[in-house]
């Protein structure tokens, strides 16, 4: 076995170790350690990605001396490598971009605890990506939930505590439902390892009498993950959670945590349930409809928001809707579009969430639109980065958002179902229009001055290397995803071929 095959194990074990280590370090040392460590992780994940592309096949890695069905196992293919690589880049950029606000929002004695949580979350997210065992998925889901609550309450103002309580209740409900689904699946198949579970389920699904149990188990599991990632009827925790957390937390929560859950769901669908079985279940149709609803209702809520962070948060709800719509369309094309949108949204949302507090900072620390007028002129860098993010969200060509919307439309046409094509095209058009309404409107607002509020605030933007680096990296990723989308979609499709 090639030495590179050990890298997924190293990323998980060293991240788990980094958590307690950061507790022992002082705040500033923990910060630097985390930054350097994230860079190492990017290199490791990138190497795994390169190795799987060049060798052309995935590899499994048994965790312990006992092989597959008896022990645990992790697995790495092109898709896992690509996702882990991108997640780590976004993680690094979030920490860098929110650096300045961490020292303002956090008490000095708790900065090292914050980085403890960030490292544990990194470990959990990587495990969610690498895992080949559905129960390991659950365990690391729990760590992700707890760490997300922790990085929310760390700001210690009343609103984040309230948001964290709501977030925790909904997330625990989601975890409970996911566990229930896992238990049901284990009860009918007798396996927790994804490949064995898939074989058992394929056998069971041949008998129509078993379909109701399977669809209930898969359905409960799906609802659990949908609640956790904020699909349409369950998206109301989002604005408070993302809107008031410290920028790094908001960016990590919206662009990585909810995407990690969706990636796990897709992995379970492909590797534990199997597309043939999934086609016999009503689950994907329900996800399709809920995704479409989310695209519209999330955008409508965003339109009504009068606080920039809440608007961006509600637009996350709409984007999650896009991803679930892709899953609902199904097939290779639909899932590829969903994965591509996960990447695109991760890159764009983190850029927006590290930019908005900068704009607020030069507007008297207010996130309200009425005060933000002209903030793009006062802090030109942030204005440009916010504009880039907005254009990508709306779906202007050359940015990532355009490519993903194009992929969704193509995937819908590929299904050959007339009703689906019409629905997808219509809702895509409506949603893009709504996106344009609130994002372009915000862009115009931060570049125009009207009324007397501008006269009150005369601050200048605070230039810092860390933030600019992070924003430039994210912008570059965004442009790369937009201009060279075929490179990524090729890799995604290769990865999906390795899945089955």
């Amino acid at each position: 076995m090639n030495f590179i095959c050990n890298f997924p194990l190293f990323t998980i074990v060293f991240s788990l170790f980094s958590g307690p280590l950061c507790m022992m370090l002082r705040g500033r040392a923990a910060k630097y350690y985390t930054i350097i460590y994230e860079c190492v992780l990017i290199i490791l994940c990138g190497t795994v990605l390169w190795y799987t592309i060049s060798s052309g096949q995935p590899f499994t890695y048994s965790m312990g001396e006992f092989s597959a069905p008896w022990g645990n196992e992790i697995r790495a293919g092109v898709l896992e490598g690509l996702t882990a690589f991108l997640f780590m880049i976004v993680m690094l950029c979030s920490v860098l971009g929110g650096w300045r606000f961490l020292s303002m929002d956090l008490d000095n004695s708790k900065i090292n605890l914050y980085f403890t949580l960030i490292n544990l979350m990194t470990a959990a997210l990587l495990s969610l990506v690498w895992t080949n065992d559905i129960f390991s998925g659950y365990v690391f889901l729990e760590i992700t939930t707890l760490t997300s609550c922790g990085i929310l309450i760390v700001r210690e103002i009343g609103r984040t505590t309230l948001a964290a309580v709501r977030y925790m209740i909904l997330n625990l409900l989601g975890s409970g439902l996911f566990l229930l689904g896992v238990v049901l699946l284990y009860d009918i198949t007798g396996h927790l390892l994804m490949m064995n579970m898939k074989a058992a389920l394929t056998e069971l699904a041949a008998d129509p009498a078993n379909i109701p149990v399977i669809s209930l188990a898969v359905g409960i599991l799906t609802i659990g993950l949908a609640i956790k990632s904020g699909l349409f009827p369950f998206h109301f925790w989002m604005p408070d959670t993302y809107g008031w957390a410290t920028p790094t937390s908001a960016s990590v929560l919206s662009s990585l945590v909810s995407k990690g859950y969706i990636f796990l769901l897709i992995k379970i669908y492909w590797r534990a349930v199997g597309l043939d079985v999934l086609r016999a279940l009503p689950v994907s149709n329900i996800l399709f409809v809920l995704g479409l609803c989310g695209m519209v209702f999330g955008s409508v809520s965003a339109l009504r928001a009068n606080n920039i962070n809440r608007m961006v948060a509600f637009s996350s709800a709409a984007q999650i809707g896009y991803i679930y719509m892709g899953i609902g369309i199904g097939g290779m094309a639909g899932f590829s579009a969903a994965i591509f949108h996960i990447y695109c949204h991760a890159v764009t949302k983190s850029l927006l969430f590290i930019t908005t507090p900068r704009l607020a900072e030069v507007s008297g620390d207010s996130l309200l639109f009425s005060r933000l007028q002209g903030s793009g002129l006062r802090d030109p860098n942030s204005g440009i980065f916010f504009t880039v993010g907005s254009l990508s969200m709306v779906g202007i060509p050359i940015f990532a958002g355009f490519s993903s919307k194009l992929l969704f439309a193509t995937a819908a046409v590929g299904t050959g179902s007339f009703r689906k094509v019409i629905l997808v095209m219509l809702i895509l058009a409506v949603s893009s229009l709504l996106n344009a309404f609130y994002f372009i409107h915000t862009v115009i607002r931060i570049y125009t001055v009207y009324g007397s509020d501008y006269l009150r605030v005369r601050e200048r933007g605070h230039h810092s290397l860390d933030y600019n680096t992070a924003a430039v990296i994210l912008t570059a990723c965004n442009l790369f995803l937009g201009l060279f989308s075929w490179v990524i979609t090729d890799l995604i499709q290769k990865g999906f071929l390795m899945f089955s």
Partner: protein
Amino acid sequence: MRKRFKKWVMGRTDVMDRILDDASEIHDQPRETIKKQRMELVREMEERPGYERTVEAEQKGFYLIYHIVAVISCILLIGVLLYTVAMLPRYGEENTRADEVVERYVEHGLEETGAVNIVSGMILDYRAFDTLGESHVLFTALICVMILLRVDHKNMRSEYEDYYTVLSDRYYSLERDTIIRTMGKILLPCIFVYGIYILLNGQNSPGGGFSGGAVMGTGLIITAAAFGFDRVDSFLPLRVSMWMTFLSLMFYSFAKGYVFFTGANGLENHIPKGVPGAILSGGLILPLDIAVGLVVAGTMFGFYSLIRRGNIGGA
């Protein structure tokens, strides 16, 4: 319509929004000023015509719908789950399910892991990756509670300052209570010995790190309740407990990392299995149990200490 559109373009400033959303803006001002501003805003809003009527009607309608929907969805979920349970394979009957994994654990568990207690063998050897995560779940919970409850400059409000500094924890403590002290003296040795027994015997009998650690944590809590935190601090100061947690988790991660590494690469594992039934058996199970036990005991005492006095160890 036109007015509303203009309001939207300009960014509305509703009174209600100013109460709720300006929280961050007025954060730096003195507390009294903030209170006064808030009260003024609330009064301003209440004085608007028709305010009470609309709020009441909204709340009434909302809560009615809320309760009805909650009850209906709960009943539906219960029904669906009962229906599912009825369709599951029956316990003890022949069914289509593959039981090869369970059979392997029961039949070969002893010889492969060296642990008489199959459950310990399963969670710490066969499926050690899950347990590696699980022990970090506890640590994560401790960190979250520390963030929430540890007293610092941000969450120590000026009006509570007296409570923490002058009255302190001693005021409410049970130290002078004869019943607790006497019972503590009698029970504590038994509790600690029992906890250590469960911890060390995890590979041979029911027990192990999680349960033994919980018993020992209870012992620490009773010590603190009966004899005061000073007594605990004298043998477990903050530095020591932090190093203990750190070293335990580090040992856990690296020991398991070593086993995973050797296992996957087909290298020889140099950890002896020992004679089944002896204290020193089961390979890594005993040291891992001790590590988990220390983390669990520290976590339980940490929760209690954070709730009582807002810190884990003495200053």
